[in-house]
């Protein structure tokens, strides 16, 4: 805004309303407008500040920076990525422990105002040095010793965090096939992709094939257990019988014999299992044997892949001269960070984002991706919305359209509004107590008896989380719907009644369509509230690491009883439960950024739907 001399109030009132384009804030002579503008401005500054913080920190996490090498006055050489930089005032006691050279340098550096700068260097190589990060004050560094060695390689691997070092040689079957930095790197690039393909094959075998065998085995066992329960077979017989099965597979002759004797003793004591059970048991035995064969086959296949992968090992040298062998299979990504131009860095950046969005987590969630958490968050929010909107709309319809106003209805309204103020963790406790331990346990009793005492629905899961959050967001939907219903003009209802419509016909054909955009607004608010909620989820189903997605290719495809990962919980886990919290910190921002974008996306979809509805019902208002 350009500075404009304030016009005298009289003059401006005489000239009447100014054209909007030329008017300044000063022309609107109401002081209260300034107050309002200040309020809005403060809110905007805070919101955009928060968003900018998240956007900057979250957005730059995956950008590969240069790797710097430097020497300290104490004679140590360090190699790493600069993680963070800050101004600080070193403590006297801190300096007292340092060597004479450092103290001299420090005294010189601090002679001004006592402030200096320091960098947090991600030195990584946790398995060699025992630390991930090192603080380096500016005065500790030997002047002009900072460099960016061309062959410094940053490696992301499956364990122990990152590794920074120089390639030394490549080995196949313990024979050196490449030596020297450039040759080793070329050898690595030639083989890494192939080895990773084997690794992925092995992972798929492990999760899908072996998992499938385990599932089949489990379902066979459950079938047998169901028959056992129905036929009333005593537990001791079953124990003795399964002992016999087990010893037959791998026990010595005496063990088999003793198990057989025990079984015979129980049967001699008067119990003879029914024919039906015997038949089922025989079938189980046969099936188990087949599955075991398959399992052995798979184990062999996995061992073959392991052997094929383990042939390739890269030996690297740390900056201290320690040699470290890393199997190629364990290297997720190796980047010659100091050789890359902007384009190369951008490719790494995008590849890391791809991994973040589409892969599962590794290294206790501090590396890898969050796809299961994205999936869980979206699935939970959608199920919650599907549950809360019909429920809330029905409740609001009754309150507004059918119930006769009175003390009871007023009390119900107050109660609904108060529900919005109940701490969300209380809903979590309620969900755990009611949904998991009462409803879920009853379902288990009725439908999953064979699996007991292991709970199926009687524990936290996607369904119970969604329903708990549906309860939490119910007041939002009820209040919004009631307001939308109240806003439907009386004349429209009367018009419908005058045509001979019943109350329900009027509600269904006139009131609800007209109130739909308002109801959608309620649903949008509920979604935003529910998607960002974490506390209750910790009690009713969100977990640090869920091995399986709640929807997958295994019949019955949708598993609402499964625990799931959630972005909000993931943020909490990264920020407060992580062992390597400094490395997890940027991931906290990135995950937050993702959660915000996800909620914004869900909202945008809902807003788009609402505007479509509005367009259908709106027009030039008479």
């Amino acid at each position, binding site marked *: 805004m350009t500075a404009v001399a304030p016009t005298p109030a009289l003059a401006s009132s005489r000239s009447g309303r100014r054209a909007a384009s030329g008017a300044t804030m000063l022309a609107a002579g109401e002081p209260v407008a300034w107050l309002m503008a200040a309020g809005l401005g403060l809110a905007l500054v805070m919101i955009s500040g928060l968003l900018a913080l998240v956007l900057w920190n979250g957005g730059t996490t995956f950008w590969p920076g240069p790797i710097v090498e430097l020497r300290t006055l104490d004679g140590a050489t360090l190699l790493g990525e600069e993680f963070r930089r800050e101004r600080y005032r070193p403590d006297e006691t801190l300096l007292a422990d340092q060597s004479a050279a450092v103290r001299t340098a420090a005294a010189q550096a601090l002679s001004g105002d006592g402030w200096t700068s320091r960098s947090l260097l991600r030195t990584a190589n946790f398995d060699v040095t025992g630390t991930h990060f090192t603080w380096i004050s500016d005065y500790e560094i030997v002047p002009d010793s900072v460099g960016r060695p061309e062959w410094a390689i940053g490696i992301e691997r499956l364990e122990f965090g990152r590794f920074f070092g120089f390639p030394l040689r490549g080995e196949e079957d313990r024979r050196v096939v490449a030596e020297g930095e450039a040759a080793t790197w070329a050898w690595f690039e030639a083989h890494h992709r192939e080895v990773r393909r084997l690794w992925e094959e092995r992972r798929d075998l492990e999760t899908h094939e072996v998992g499938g065998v385990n599932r089949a085995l489990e379902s066979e066992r459950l079938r047998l257990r169901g028959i056992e329960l129905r036929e009333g077979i005593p537990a001791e017989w079953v124990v003795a019988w399964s002992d016999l099965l087990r010893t037959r597979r791998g026990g010595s002759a005496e063990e088999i014999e003793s198990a057989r004797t025990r079984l015979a003793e129980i049967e001699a004591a008067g119990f003879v299992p029914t024919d039906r059970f015997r038949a089922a048991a025989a079938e189980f035995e046969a099936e188990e044997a087949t599955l075991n064969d398959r399992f052995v086959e798979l184990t062999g296949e996995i061992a073959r892949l392991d052997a094929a992968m383990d042939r390739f090992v890269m030996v690297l040298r740390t900056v201290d001269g320690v040699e470290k062998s890393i199997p190629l299979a364990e290297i997720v990504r190796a980047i010659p960070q100091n050789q890359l131009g902007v384009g190369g860095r951008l490719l790494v950046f995008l590849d890391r984002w791809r991994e973040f969005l589409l892969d599962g987590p590794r290294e206790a969630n501090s590396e890898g991706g969050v796809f299961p958490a994205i999936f869980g968050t979206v699935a939970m929010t959608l199920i919650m919305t599907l549950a809360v909107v019909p429920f809330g709309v029905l409740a609001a319809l009754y309150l507004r359209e059918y119930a006769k106003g009175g003390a009871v209805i007023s009390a119900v309204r107050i109660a609904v509004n108060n529900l919005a103020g109940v701490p969300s963790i209380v809903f979590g406790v309620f969900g755990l107590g009611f949904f998991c331990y009462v409803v879920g346990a009853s379902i288990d009793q009725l439908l999953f008896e064979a699996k007991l005492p292991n709970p199926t629905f009687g524990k936290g899961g996607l369904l119970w989380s969604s329903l708990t959050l549906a309860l939490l967001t119910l007041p939002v939907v009820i209040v919004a719907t009631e307001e939308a219903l109240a806003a439907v*003009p009386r*004349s*429209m209802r*009367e*018009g*419908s*009644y*005058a*045509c*001979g*419509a*019943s109350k329900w*016909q009027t509600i269904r*054909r*006139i009131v609800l*369509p*007209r109130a739909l955009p308002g109801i959608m607004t309620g649903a949008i608010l509920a979604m935003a509230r529910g998607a960002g909620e974490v506390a209750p989820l910790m009690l009713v189903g969100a977990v640090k690491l869920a091995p399986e997605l709640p929807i997958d290719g295994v019949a019955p495809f949708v598993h609402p009883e499964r625990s799931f990962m959630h972005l909000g919980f993931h943020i909490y886990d990264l920020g407060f439960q992580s062992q390597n919290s400094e490395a997890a910190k940027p991931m906290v921002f990135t995950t937050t950024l993702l959660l915000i974008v996800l909620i914004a996306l869900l909202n945008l979809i809902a807003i788009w739907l609402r505007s479509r509805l509005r367009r*259908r*019902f*709106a*027009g*030039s*208002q*008479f």
Partner: protein
Amino acid sequence: MTDRAAPTIPAAPTTRPGPTSIDARASRNLAAIARGETVQAVVHEEVDREQVVLEVDGFSLFYGGYQALHRVSMKVPRGKITALIGPSGCGKTTLLRSVNRLNDLIDGVRVEGDMRLNGDSIYGRDVDVIELRKRMGMVFQKSNPFPMSIYENVVYALRIDGQRDRRVLDEVCERSLRAAALWDEVKDRLHESALGMSGGQQQRLCIARAVAAEPEVLLMDEPCSALDPIATQKIEELMESLVPHYSVLIVTHNMQQAARASDYTAYMVLGRLIEYGPTQSIFQNPKLPETEDYITGRFG
């Protein structure tokens, strides 16, 4: 309808007549009303010669403790336009809304007496209100098209009756829109939102909706009060084209409109029917002085 000449409204007398002036007699009648007494309505004999479509019989209505209608009795003739006039708060709209029992929706309303639609009781204990309302149509003061297409607006009454036959619906839609003189204007955009029409068109759409189910009586509650003069004129022409096929009972604040467009006029004051007769006599030769006061603008 060419024979209905619009009667002119007599100018207010400039000089006061003698002691038995109409002012004195008028104030006597009005004083009785103010005391809460029931006043015998003056009904012109022409009314009794008509066929009756709707008969109001000693009808009283109470909003809680307040009595809004005092033993009103009148016969609405078939195939004619009957106008209800009177000062604000005289109960014309209440009477109209009592005919299709819309007042039932208001808490604390109590009625005495009865009405009969073609001989069938309206306030009897075993009357199905929904069925009853299907026999009438109503047009409101402010047009209230539903938030749906023009087509669906018109056939709404049939839709809620469960009519699915496309041919029947199409036919009713066209017939009703033609009856409401709207067909030519909207026939190309039947499936667009009704809310995109102009105010006058919306009101005519409401009339089309009201006549779609062939009502036995068409109730109109000040249908032109929110319209400009040109739209008003169109509605009035439309009303004239509706008779004698339909019977119309219309509430109006606008006396010129009552004089121009109606066959019979009933004048109400404070919940009582005062005078009821052919529009021409009411406006040119009223039997009661208070009627003359009102139509000449000296009262109300």
